[in-house]
């Protein structure tokens, strides 16, 4: 029997990150700085809420949009970033930010539409756009501009012909952040060229210097932006798969229509955990952020002492140093010889070449061991 795969499925490449982990899994003593996942477990109150939800037999679907009380808590939580979204019509609870992004693409992108993606970027945006039939337009950001998206970068890439612009700040993989001044330029471009913006802010709580700024709070942007956030990173709840989207009612409604035919509703147990996380886990988030911040400083100072150029990443839990030569060859050799796993920057698209993504969501002894190995490796490289 022959299998007729869709063209979209056939042309979708496997994740460039996974290939490295498959090599790493065959090795014995690898220190992995590759995975973008907290090394903490979710705060106990959130875990307990999930357990209690199961004990009470809360195993049914919730409303398609997510539990009303959770959406209200999300609405309240979002005010800390200057947002004001109505829990009934403007918030959708999803199975992780990944599902929310896919829904937004499907709600907004028709075949042939152009989706501008600020790169280096999280690896899903391009495939998400392609699955909707969109044409991906990479918008490279530069190390010399600390990987911020600028008006010039959008112009250079020809993003005026785009329909949708997607970006993520604090950024995975670079750790770059954008403040209100920088976002104003992007907002200006989006307004001038009528772009709809998908702003992935899942790392908002992991902003180390100053407060997180959202493009949706810029003048005239609320009506042309969907903001994404979730519980995976800030609350160390990756496996519970819970995210949300906030945006104009008609867009959220369209996303919900697709969501109700595919996912129906986000996991009920995870929604219970998320509600508790929002209500009582601020201290735990602050504590985790403080620990990440310490690790960030440690890793940055070690890379600089090794002579690797690395701007001061101020968000998420990644640094993005430049490395000598070809980044993929460097990462592979580093893995095979020094047994340290990092991810080559080119995996994340244009602008990532010549860098590697280093996750510092690891314990300090592991980070120290990894840095010692990288230093020794570089001495002979």
């Amino acid at each position, binding site marked *: 029997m022959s299998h007729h795969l869709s063209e979209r499925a056939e042309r979708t490449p496997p994740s460039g990150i996974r290939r490295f982990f498959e090599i790493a899994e065959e090795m014995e003593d690898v220190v992995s700085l590759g995975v973008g996942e907290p090394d903490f477990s979710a*705060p106990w109150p959130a875990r307990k809420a999930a357990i209690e939800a199961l004990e009470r037999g809360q195993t049914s679907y919730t409303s398609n949009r997510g539990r009303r009380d959770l959406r209200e808590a999300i609405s309240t939580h979002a005010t800390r970033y200057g947002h004001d979204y109505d829990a009934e019509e403007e918030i959708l609870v999803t199975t992780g930010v990944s599902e929310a992004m896919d829904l937004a693409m499907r709600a907004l992108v028709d075949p042939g539409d152009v989706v501008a993606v600020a790169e280096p970027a999280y690896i899903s945006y391009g495939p998400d756009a392609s699955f909707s039939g969109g044409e991906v337009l990479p918008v490279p950001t530069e190390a010399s501009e600390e990987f911020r998206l600028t008006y010039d970068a959008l112009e250079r890439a020809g993003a005026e012909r785009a329909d949708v612009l997607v970006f993520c700040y604090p950024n995975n993989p670079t750790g770059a952040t954008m403040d209100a001044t920088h976002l104003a330029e992007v907002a200006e471009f989006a307004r001038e060229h009528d772009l709809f913006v998908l702003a992935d802010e899942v790392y908002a709580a992991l902003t180390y210097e100053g407060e997180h700024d959202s493009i949706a709070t810029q003048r005239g942007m609320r009506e042309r932006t969907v903001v994404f956030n979730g519980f995976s990173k800030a609350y160390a709840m990756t496996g519970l798969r819970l995210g949300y989207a906030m945006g104009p009612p008609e867009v959220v409604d369209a996303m919900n229509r697709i969501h109700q035919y595919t996912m129906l509703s986000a996991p009920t147990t995870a929604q219970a955990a998320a509600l508790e996380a929002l209500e009582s886990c601020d201290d735990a988030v602050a504590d985790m952020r403080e620990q990440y911040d310490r690790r960030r400083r440690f890793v940055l*100072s070690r890379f600089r002492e090794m002579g690797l150029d690395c701007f001061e990443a101020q968000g998420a839990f990644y640094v993005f140093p430049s490395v000598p030569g070809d980044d993929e060859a460097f990462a592979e050799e580093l893995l095979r010889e020094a047994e340290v796993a990092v991810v080559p920057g080119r995996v994340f698209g244009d602008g990532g070449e010549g860098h590697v993504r280093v996750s510092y969501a690891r314990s*300090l002894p592991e980070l120290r061991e990894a840095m010692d190995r990288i230093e020794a490796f570089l001495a002979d490289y």
Partner: protein
Amino acid sequence: MDDDDRRRVLDLLCEDARYTPEDVARQLDLTPEEAEAHIEALEDEGVLRGYTAVVDWAALDDGIVEAKVELNVELDRETGYEDISRRIAKFPEVAAFQLVSGDYDFALEVRADSMNAVSRFVSEEIAPIPEVTQTVTHYVMETYKAEGIEFGDGEEDDRLSYSP
């Protein structure tokens, strides 16, 4: 000296006493000299009292025996808690010794090579002290967590846990 920095230095050394001044400096955005100065000052002031290891003695064939001893005393005009504490704290078998509130007066942590040695120590050195009216000895049978570190075979998910 900045109190916040002092507290952060202490938090780090409680997390891992093996952190070098350079490790501390890198994490807190201090210079190694500043980190070292904080540590020395904390030592000089008697805030940092020492550095020790967290050991799972049960993992050794010839490990030591640990016991928690509750101690009740009767004070008189001439003798206070301080007098008794000075006498008891000097024994090398006493790993920890605290005045506590509740049903008994002092909590002792005793370590020795065998159960016999613990019993002998309590009966021959502690019980005969004139002010001591009662001792209750609890032998430690299994340690699951000590100094914030969970004991186990390390096979399970080793994520750091967030609990109240």
